[in-house]
């Protein structure tokens, strides 16, 4: 019977470390957009205020870092879930590559948006 797996990639520890490093970045940065959304919904922040906050160079850098950590964390998390629940390699590999492509595309699109403010 033909075995349905690739050999060990040897970067499992790297994945593990990136997942945790991105988690630490997210713990530090994610509260800010969460609070901003609540302020917007609560009516204590308008578009002018939002734009002046987001357009600050420091905010742009922090937002870019947040975006990188968020997409890295999401990609590695989805990879882990796929490795556990999609046992068929012919299905898992294209799913994984599609996820990576979407993450890279979303990252490029959002970076262009953040630095256009």
């Amino acid at each position: 019977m033909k075995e349905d797996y690739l050999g060990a990639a040897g970067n499992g520890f790297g994945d593990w470390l990136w997942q945790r490093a991105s988690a630490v970045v997210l713990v530090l940065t994610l509260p800010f957009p969460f609070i901003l959304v609540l302020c917007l919904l609560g009516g204590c922040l308008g578009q002018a205020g939002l734009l002046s906050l987001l357009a600050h160079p420091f905010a742009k850098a922090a937002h870019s870092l947040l975006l990188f950590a968020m997409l890295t964390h999401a990609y590695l998390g989805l990879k882990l879930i796929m490795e556990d629940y999609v046992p068929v390699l012919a299905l898992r590999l294209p799913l994984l590559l599609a996820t990576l492509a979407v993450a890279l595309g979303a990252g490029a699109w959002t970076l262009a948006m953040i630095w256009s403010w």
Partner: protein
Amino acid sequence: MTQRPLSPRLSIYRWHVQAVASIAHRASGLVLVFAIPFYLYVLSGLTGDAASFESTMSALQSTLSRLLVWLIGVALVYHFANGIRFLCLDMGLGESREMLRMSAKAMLAIAGVAAVVLAAVLL
């Protein structure tokens, strides 16, 4: 396909609160993956021209959006809290069986409180 049984063998293992906390971390993580395009869509709408800001804000006020924000908020609070718990475990903090049980219950309780508070604020 190999014929080996897939882990986790749910029909064999007894459910315990640490396992619930662990699978809830995955489930909330999956919700948050789908929250990313929602976040980017809202971000782009809110930072566009004044008309797109207004239409995005009114879209956010709809019942469906507020339900979505509630779901994302609860998933975020849980994943955030339990993620810190996992980071602590990686550093060797709270690894005893009693602490694992207690902290798992505490994280689930935090999610419960967040669900109630966010429901009161948003719904």
